[in-house]
């Protein structure tokens, strides 16, 4: 006898939503065992990573600030993933969005006016979308896989950032340190709560999530994206253009990544530095899947990931857990989610073992 995976005709809705929860539970359990074997207080450490930040109100703003860029990027990515458009280079679009917005900030230095910040954010959107347009065009014109091109363009964006902050955009009063001037008050996304990092960009993320939900579930465009992803043949017969969907979803995900980049750059960094990229664009991929590619799910997934970031820092001081545990926890979440999904989509059956091979 052997085990055999058989596709389910229809996977249950409950199982679909239970899968991310199960994945997190499995991550916690494995983490406990793993950390205990590594010589730490495993259960305590896992509690500190996943639960402790939720119990301390002074950590809530931190979670929101951390979740904000993840959720905004993942919302865009989820739209593309639904249409089988695999934008892996959100990190690059995030960087170029910040670069474009910083360009506006440096050009409007010493300028006061309410329009400066909106213009910076608009530049972020355009920059991110433009960077995503390259892999989109390569795919529809030359059939090049957007997975490769969008990923590779991330490294181009990184070098562009290094070049700018070291060369033309370097702060003239910054002792040769590779970073731009600090943004002025008019160029900074305002703070929401004194004594914390909470800023208006967090609310902007909530607005984006709402709009994404509305468009995806209530409009023809959203329907088109879903159909192209689920049934390409039917979409073609129905007159939906696959190329249009590719371009549209790439531009949207790029635009949101770019906007997230500019908001983060202005609200929390206050300048462009070589340390600006911290892989939010890649972590957002986990968030998108954890959120089942649904805007509201992405919001919850983003909060879960952000909690694990904050919690891992708590576990460092409280349980002396090494920082590498953060990466481990995040990787496990995606791993278990993909694993659990196999069982959601398939059933395990016992089948007679194959003793003879027909030739």
């Amino acid at each position, binding site marked *: 006898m052997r085990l055999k995976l058989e596709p389910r005709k229809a996977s249950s809705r409950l199982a679909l939503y239970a899968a991310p929860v199960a994945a997190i539970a499995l991550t916690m359990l494995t983490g406990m065992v793993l950390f205990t074997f590594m010589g730490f207080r495993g259960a305590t450490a896992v509690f500190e990573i996943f639960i402790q930040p939720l119990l301390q109100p*002074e*950590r809530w703003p*931190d979670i929101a*600030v*951390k979740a904000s860029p993840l959720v905004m990027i993942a919302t865009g990515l989820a739209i593309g993933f639904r249409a089988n458009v695999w934008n892996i280079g959100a990190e690059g679009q995030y960087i170029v969005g910040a670069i474009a917005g910083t360009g506006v900030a440096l050009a409007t230095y010493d300028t006061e006016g309410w329009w400066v910040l909106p213009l910076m954010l608009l530049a972020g959107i355009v920059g991110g979308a433009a960077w995503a347009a390259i892999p989109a065009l390569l795919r529809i014109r030359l059939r090049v896989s957007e997975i490769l091109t969008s990923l590779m363009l991330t490294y181009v964006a990184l070098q562009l950032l*290094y070049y700018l902050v*070291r060369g033309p955009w370097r702060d003239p009063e910054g*002792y*040769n*340190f*590779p970073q731009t001037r*600090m943004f002025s008050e008019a160029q900074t996304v305002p703070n929401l709560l004194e*004594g*914390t*990092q909470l800023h208006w960009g967090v609310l902007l993320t909530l607005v984006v999530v709402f709009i994404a939900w509305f468009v995806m579930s209530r409009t023809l465009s959203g329907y088109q994206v879903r159909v192209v992803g689920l049934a390409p043949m039917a979409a073609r017969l129905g007159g939906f253009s696959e190329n249009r969907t590719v371009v549209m979803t790439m531009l949207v995900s790029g635009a949101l990544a770019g906007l997230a980049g500019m908001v*983060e750059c202005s609200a*929390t*960094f*206050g*300048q462009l*530095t*070589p*340390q*600006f990229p*911290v892989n939010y664009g890649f972590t957002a991929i986990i968030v998108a899947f954890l959120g089942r590619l649904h805007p509201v799910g992405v919001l919850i997934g983003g909060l879960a990931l952000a909690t694990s970031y*904050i919690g891992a*820092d*708590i576990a*460092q*001081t*409280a349980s*002396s857990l*090494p*920082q*590498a545990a953060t990466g481990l926890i995040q990787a496990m979440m995606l791993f278990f989610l993909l694993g659990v999904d196999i069982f959601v989509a398939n059933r395990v059956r016992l089948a007679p073992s194959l003793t003879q091979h027909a030739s």
Partner: protein
Amino acid sequence: MAAILDRRMLLAGAGASAALPYLGARALAADPLKVGFIYVGPVGDFGYTHAHDVARKKTQDFYGDKIKTNYVENVPEGPDAERVLRQLAQEGNALIFATSFGFMNATAKVAKTLPKVYFEHATGYMRGPNLATYNARFYEGRAVIGTIAGMMSKTGVGGYVASFPIPEVVMGINCFTLAARKVNPKFQTKVLWLSTWYDPAKEADAAKALADQGADIITQHTDSPAPLQVCEQKGLYGFGQASDMSSIAPKAHLTAIVDNWAPYYIGRVKAVMDNTWKTGDTWWGLKQDTVQIAPYNPAMPDNVKKAADDVKNAIIAGTLHPVTGPVSDNKGTQRLKDGEKATDEMLEKMDWYVEGVQS
């Protein structure tokens, strides 16, 4: 004696209530002073962060249960640093050491909002009533290893794996090259910039590239032992960074510039305990034992050891300044006249390279 008696009486007298005397005893024993550290790399980097953590442990051992130190490692230089600093303060740390240059803006920002917590920032230039800075004269050590490199190199080409072109790093490159050219006037230093403090894979690649360009001795201003491992494999010489790395590359490791932060940390903790903490800027070097030279590799000939010791002792005695004219930059402009010594201010703003540097 009186205190002990009081405590016993308290304990005995309370009788029925268990919690009350416990609290009383605790108050008499005084809670340990909490001291926090944030690190840019992992404590296991064998280099810069490792050296800070060694000093943290020495400080902890020195004071025993009078203090409690804790740390957060791998903190990205940006808004995450701000969040972690605030978290450490909220967890009750009265004195916090931010050990990397890129934490400067975050530390300055948090220090302003938390006037009762003492902050110490390494290698920066922003100070405040509760924010002091400290640094070590690493460049003095660079003069010692530059002397060794000039005498040991057969090709007359040294490789320099560098992080960011900030004054701190630039002055190191210059002192290394000046010292090497003093013993071999044709010596050239080839510099590769990595835009990171810690990335073993990138550091190893850079060391290989430098070796391919003819460098037979490699030094670094990045934090991992990866370049030394490349030297060990290729039969080249190298130097440890921030910590003695001889265990990792016993043949290649000629010596190391060792950062010894413990005296400073112990002193600053005492200042907080005695209520005498004051802001300021401390820049100690070989003389104060903050910068140390690790034991020499037995493979080094005696005349090289002697030349290195002579430079070290002359710097300690104050008879030699590593940057003494005549000094010209690599574009041919004279920067220091014959016998003129570089001031601290000049070093802190250094953004030019001496003759012989190929950057």
